[in-house]
């Protein structure tokens, strides 16, 4: 699985400015809806499901990264977006640090394997210092998409 298989380029938010975790999640889901990757009428239900998942435990996994996610019957394939919050967002992360890179995933309930492989894929790239560092410095969707392509093609060292 490649990042380009599930990250929707049009939904990337390279400069997310929000004060709360809930606002970050809302903006990201709205962005997916805005480009038609999810239906607008499902937007609130998806936001609610992601927030409910966060209540089980933060998806802020440390290293300035969060992966808010949910399964939702309205999607028939895994869709995701990325947001970069230069000022950081308090995500109640495991390590107590603010989050600067967010991957938001919505996956079909009957495809748990895809969700696991997407998490594997995201984590594998985020372990790469170059990937993280370049991602934090990206200022446009185009730059993020190019970086994802380089990561998919293992060009980041």
């Amino acid at each position, binding site marked *: 699985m490649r990042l380009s298989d599930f990250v929707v380029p049009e939904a990337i938010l390279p400069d997310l400015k929000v004060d709360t975790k809930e606002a970050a999640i809302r903006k990201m889901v709205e962005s997916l809806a805005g480009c038609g990757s999810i239906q607008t009428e499902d937007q609130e239900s998806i936001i609610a499901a992601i927030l409910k998942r966060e209540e089980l435990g933060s998806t802020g996994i440390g290293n300035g990264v969060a992966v808010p996610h949910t399964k939702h019957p309205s999607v028939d394939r895994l869709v995701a977006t990325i947001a970069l919050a230069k000022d950081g967002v308090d995500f109640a992360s*495991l390590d107590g640090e603010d989050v600067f890179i967010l991957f938001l995933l919505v996956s079909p309930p009957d495809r748990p394997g895809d969700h*696991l492989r997407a998490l594997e894929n995201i984590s594998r790239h985020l372990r790469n210092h170059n990937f993280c560092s370049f991602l934090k410095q990206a200022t446009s969707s185009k730059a993020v998409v190019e970086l994802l392509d380089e990561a998919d093609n293992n060009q980041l060292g």
Partner: protein
Amino acid sequence: MFPRSDNFIAAMHRAVLMMPNQMCIREVTVNLENGLHLAPSSQIVQLAQKFGCALSIRKGERTVDGTSMLELLTLAAEHGAVLQLEARGDRAEEAIEAISQLFERNFEVEEPA
């Protein structure tokens, strides 16, 4: 075998008892229908932190640092995967027991919606 004095054996015994790091190994199976996704991985990391242990987790040929979420998630351990846990630290035995129990209880969490 070389003959060893009682003093030598006693000294070795003391050395073993004073070893700062215990090591414990145990094999577990992932019974979660959705595999070892983010919530259960987070529970493992938190237990390793609680007991102040180094934890490595092996799946097949790959071994990752079980105290790092990013590392743990790269295992993509699906339902049925067999993992070998290895804890090191003063409380390694407690840690491995607690983490094994997580697997036995199937993490006792609702699957995220």
